[in-house]
Each structure stands twice: as structure tokens, then as C-alpha cells.
């Protein structure tokens, strides 16, 4: 094993360090080359524990490879490449460097063999994803970045307390299924779920991601939530509570996306929705369900990045982000529109796209377990995905009305990244066995049966009918929707300000009283009355008397 083991995360960390100092013409080489080299390194590794080190008296496993871990690392590396391709000519170099360090964190988590290593890379992601949010460059991005960092550092603290609890109580730092029988397990679960944008804090995602730059949201959509999905698969497979958390996320995403006007915020809500499908699959926990969750994460990263590239191109070319200000762009941005529509069809699980061959595994797993309610909700949600992301996003951005805007398609590198991922969406849909061969368990599932095709076409097209029939109910308004983030953006803010003001008033009051006392001391009867000009011994005896009273009171009580 000594023959040249290249730790994949290290390649990207080095890349991130180099992007800044090297001369500008060399930057694309690193932005695009480091992810490809990482991909090569990922596929050179055999299964098992490959690299260990000593840390705080524990033997930590820096690299542990398995098919599941390789699957996630692979898509993270592909994402770092395609995102870099989309971004490298337009984004600032510090955004590119931060994104590469962020990807390094995600790949580090993928191969982390123990909880300490996982936590270290987890925090690396938190830090550099915050930098990516800040690269949005606006006042809104700055504030959203602070809220985002606060949420993730809080999640990190909970995760760390949980990990320390597990270390103390079991003596093991192995990554293995953790039973939810005590506080430690729950804290780890909560820490991981915060990154998955689970309730009640799902709002952080739709708050922060749309404030990033056109390319920033492409990177952000991929890593944080999907490493959380991987961590859930490794640590909490088959925990039933995840089914219901997942279903909540699914419908939360749909409803909020239906209410939303900002095109990238619609897509952000639909990330929560899609991660909900994965979390639900992990909760079902059978081999089929885990395969489905992993495959869906792989497919989702591609089509969601594609959708955000399409939206990012529109934002880059027009500077506008609200559906109410967009529309009719299909004529002047045909390639962006086509790629956006392919992404929209893939997220809707349209036959012959990637979503069709992955999402159906999760509902199939629910059916195999005879979970009737769960299955019905998953089918309704599939229809809802077509509604809120599959039609709503392309319709309001590229069709709807003529907004009068005539932007061209974006520069060549942005187009190339979109075409690459569009091809990937269709290729995975047409040749699902490529992806099925990479899954952790053997796949015994055939997505392309006449029965599945007919039922899926019925489901999706009648959802489309519902969309157009109820279009008047979905008129765009210049609004945002209140969410739990109201608690920390408004209530928490006023509470905090109230406390600060209260303390300030208390301080002022104390000062005033003290001042008054001082004045009385200085100018009061002391100066002229019987007590004025007392000798020190007299003063001392007064003090002794008071002390005596206090001491005797203490003894008597």
C-alpha cells in the first residue's frame, strides 16, 4: 500500500492553496486539473482502511474506502470539476479556492473512517462554504453568510458533543450505526440533520444559497446536504424517525417553492425537497432503499447543479433573479433554456432521465415494505416535484410572458458545463446500469417496465395539467414567505436588542443611583452634621458595630 497513495482530499486542499498564489493564466489548470486528479486518486484506491494517524491519543482513520464512500466521493469530484468549469472565467479566484477547499471537506468526510476525522472535514466544509456564500459580494450575502455560519457552527458544536459522548461511553470512534438509545446518539443525529436542512431549521438553506454568486449556488447545492445524507446512511440507516423527517422536508420544499418568487430560492427549496426523498429512503433502511438514497444523491447533484447553472446563467446575463421580472427568455437563451428544461425533467423523474431511475427505487422500497401511507405520500410528492421545480422554474423563467429582456446565452465555459451535465442527466437515465453498478448493494431492479412508464407518464402529465389549470392561483407576487428563520432574524433579534437595551438601562440606572449617593456623601449632612469630621477610630467603631450585627444575625438565623 506504500506505492503512492494520494489522499484525494489532500489534492483538492493543495489545489485550493495554489489557486491564489499562482499566476492567473495557470489558475484554470488547477481549478479543472485538481478535481480530475482527485477523481483518478479515488478510483486508484482499494476498499478498506488505507491511511491512519495518531491524534489526541486516538488512532484515527484518515481514509477508509468502500463502494458507498467511493460513490459519494466520485460525484463530489465530478461536481468540483463541472462547477469549476462553469465558474473559472467569471468567478473571483477566492471563490474558486474556497469552493475547492469546500469540495475537499466533502471528499474528506466521504472517506473518513472515524468520527474525529469526519468532524474535522465537516468543519472544513462549514468554514469554506461560508466563504462561498460571502463571495456573493452583496450586503445581503454578508448577512446571510453570518446566519449560515452561525447555524453550521451550532450544528458542529452539537455534533462534537455527541461524538465526545460516544467516545466516552463506548471508547470507540468507529463510524458505524449508532443506536438512538441515549443522548449522544441524538446529538449526533441532530448535528447531522442540521446540515441536511431538516426541520425545524430547514430555512438556513433557502436563506443563504440564493445570496451567493451565480456560480456559488452551484457549488453550494452539492456538498453540504449530500455529505449529511452519506453520514446518515453510515450512522443511522433504518431509523424510522427519518422516514417522517424526510416526508416533512419533501412537502415543506414543495409548498415553499410554490410560494416563492426568486428563481434560485425556488431551486433551493427543491434541494430540501429532494434531500427529503433521500432521508426518507435512509429511514426505510432496506438494501433497495439505501441504494435508492445513494443513487438519488448522485443523480440529484448533477441535475440540481444543472438547474442552478441554468438559473445562474440567467442571473449572470440579466442581473435579475425574480420570476416576476423574468419570462420569455427561451428565444434569446435557447441553450440555457434547453439545459434548464433537461434538469427540470430529470428532477421530476421523467422517463429517460436520471431522476426516473433513482427516485423510483425509494418508492419501490416503500412498496416492498408495504408502507402504504409512505408510498402514497412519495407518489404525491413526485407529482409535486414536477409542479414546483419541473414546470414552475422553466415556465416562469423561459416562457410565461415576454419580459422584454433579450440576453444571449452565457460565455462558452458556462455553456460547456451545462451541456456536460445535461448529457449526464440523460445518459444516466438511458443507461442506468452504469450507476447501479456503483451502488453499495447489488441491484435487482428494472426501472423500464411498461407498467412503470405508463404510470409515471400519467402521474407527471396530469400534474402538468394541474399546473396550467391552476395557473391563476400561482400568480407571482413580490413576496417572501415567513419561515422558522423569522425566530432568529426578527424575534431573536428583538429579544437580543431588548436585552442589550435593558442591560444598558440597568447600567444607566445603577450609575445614576451611585452618582446620587456619591453626591449625598459629598454634599449631604455628613459634611456639616454630627457625623462630620469624625476621627478614624470613631468610624472604625461604627464599622465594627455593623459587622457585629451582621455576624450575630448570621449565627442566629
Amino acid at each position, binding site marked *: 500500500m506504500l506505492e503512492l497513495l494520494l489522499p484525494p482530499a489532500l489534492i483538492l486542499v493543495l489545489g485550493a492553496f495554489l489557486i491564489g498564489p499562482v499566476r492567473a493564466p495557470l489558475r484554470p489548470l488547477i481549478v479543472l486539473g485538481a478535481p480530475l486528479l482527485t477523481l483518478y486518486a479515488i478510483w486508484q484506491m482499494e476498499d478498506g482502511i488505507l491511511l491512519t494517524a495518531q491524534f489526541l491519543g486516538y488512532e484515527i482513520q484518515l481514509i477508509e474506502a468502500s463502494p458507498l464512500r467511493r460513490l459519494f466521493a466520485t460525484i463530489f469530484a465530478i461536481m468540483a470539476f463541472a462547477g469549476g468549469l462553469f465558474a473559472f472565467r467569471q468567478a473571483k479566484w477566492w471563490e474558486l479556492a474556497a469552493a475547492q477547499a469546500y469540495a475537499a471537506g466533502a471528499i474528506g468526510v466521504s472517506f473518513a473512517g472515524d468520527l474525529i476525522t469526519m468532524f474535522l472535514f465537516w468543519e472544513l466544509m462549514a468554514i469554506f462554504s461560508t466563504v462561498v456564500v460571502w463571495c456573493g459580494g452583496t450586503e445581503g450575502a454578508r448577512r446571510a453568510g453570518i446566519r449560515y455560519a452561525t447555524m453550521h457552527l451550532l450544528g458542529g458544536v452539537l455534533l462534537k458533543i455527541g461524538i465526545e459522548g460516544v467516545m466516552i461511553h463506548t471508547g470507540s470512534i468507529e463510524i458505524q450505526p449508532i443506536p438512538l438509545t441515549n443522548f449522544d446518539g441524538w446529538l449526533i443525529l441532530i448535528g447531522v440533520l442540521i446540515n441536511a436542512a431538516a426541520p425545524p431549521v430547514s430555512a438556513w438553506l433557502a436563506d443563504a444559497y440564493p445570496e451567493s454568486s451565480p456560480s456559488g449556488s452551484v457549488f453550494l447545492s452539492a456538498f453540504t446536504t449530500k455529505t449529511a445524507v452519506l453520514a446518515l446512511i453510515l450512522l443511522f440507516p433504518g431509523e424510522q424517525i427519518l422516514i417522517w423527517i424526510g416526508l416533512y422536508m419533501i412537502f415543506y420544499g414543495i409548498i415553499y417553492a410554490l410560494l416563492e418568487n426568486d428563481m434560485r430560492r425556488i431551486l433551493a427549496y427543491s434541494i430540501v425537497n429532494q434531500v427529503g426523498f433521500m432521508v426518507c429512503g435512509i429511514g426505510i433502511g432496506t438494501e433497495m432503499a439505501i441504494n435508492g438514497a445513494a443513487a438519488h444523491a448522485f443523480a440529484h447533484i448533477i441535475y440540481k447543479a444543472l438547474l442552478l447553472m441554468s438559473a445562474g446563467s440567467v442571473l449572470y446575463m440579466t442581473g435579475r433573479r425574480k420570476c416576476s421580472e423574468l419570462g420569455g427568455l427561451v428565444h434569446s437563451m435557447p441553450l440555457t433554456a434547453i439545459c434548464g428544461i433537461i434538469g427540470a425533467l430529470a428532477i421530476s423523474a421523467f422517463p429517460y432521465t436520471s431522476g426516473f431511475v433513482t427516485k423510483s427505487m425509494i418508492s419501490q422500497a416503500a412498496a416492498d415494505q408495504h408502507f402504504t401511507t409512505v408510498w402514497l405520500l412519495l407518489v*404525491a410528492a413526485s*407529482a*409535486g416535484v414536477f409542479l414546483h421545480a419541473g414546470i414552475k422554474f422553466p415556465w416562469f423563467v423561459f*416562457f410565461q410572458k*415576454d419580459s422584454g429582456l433579450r440576453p444571449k446565452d452565457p460565455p462558452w465555459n458556462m455553456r460547456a458545463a451545462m451541456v456536460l451535465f445535461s448529457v449526464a442527466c440523460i445518459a444516466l437515465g438511458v443507461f442506468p446500469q452504469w450507476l447501479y453498478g456503483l451502488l453499495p448493494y447489488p441491484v435487482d431492479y428494472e426501472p423500464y417496465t411498461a407498467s412503470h412508464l405508463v404510470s409515471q407518464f*400519467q*402521474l407527471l402529465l396530469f*400534474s402538468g395539467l394541474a399546473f396550467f389549470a391552476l395557473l391563476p392561483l400561482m400568480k407571482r407576487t413580490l413576496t417572501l414567505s415567513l*419561515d422558522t428563520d423569522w425566530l432568529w432574524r426578527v424575534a431573536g433579534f428583538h429579544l437580543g436588542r431588548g436585552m442589550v437595551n435593558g442591560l444598558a438601562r440597568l447600567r444607566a440606572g445603577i450609575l445614576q443611583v451611585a452618582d446620587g449617593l456619591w453626591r449625598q456623601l459629598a454634599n449631604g449632612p455628613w459634611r456639616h452634621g454630627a457625623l462630620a469630621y469624625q476621627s478614624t477610630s470613631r468610624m472604625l467603631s461604627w464599622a465594627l458595630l455593623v459587622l457585629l450585627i451582621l455576624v450575630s444575625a448570621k449565627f442566629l438565623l
Partner: protein
Amino acid sequence: MTDPHRKSWLYRPENRGKLWWGFALVLAATVLAQLAFPLHGHFGFDEWFGFNALFGFASCAAMVILAKVLGFLLKRPDSYYDDDA
């Protein structure tokens, strides 16, 4: 208006009806396809004629209406958070 996009086929009002008819034909075809390819469900009810069509439409309608109702409670002007400092 010499704007070429105004004349796009998709947007001409007289084509609206044609688009709806075309859509209706496709919708009918997906339901009728069930006669040629019987569905293999897991629960029984999912093999009923037109189940997916009806369920898809009904659940979407329910979600749109739910969103509309929640919107009355949750929607705020999009400058709502702008003055938090």
C-alpha cells in the same frame, strides 16, 4: 411592435386552443395506454384505471390550494427583512 418574439407561434392567442387540444390528446393517450399495458401494482388500488392520472392531478391541486392558503399567513413583502440591522 416589430418585436419578433411577439409573433412566436407559442404566444399567439389563436394557437392557445390548439395547444390545449394537443395536450388533451397526450393526456388521453397516457390513460388509454393502460388498456394496452396493464399496470402491475403493489397495493391493488394502484392498478385501477386512471389511478395515477387522478392521484397526480388531485394531489397537485391539493398542494397548490394548500400553498395558496398558507400564503395568506406566510407571505410578506419581499423587503420584509431588508431593514433588519
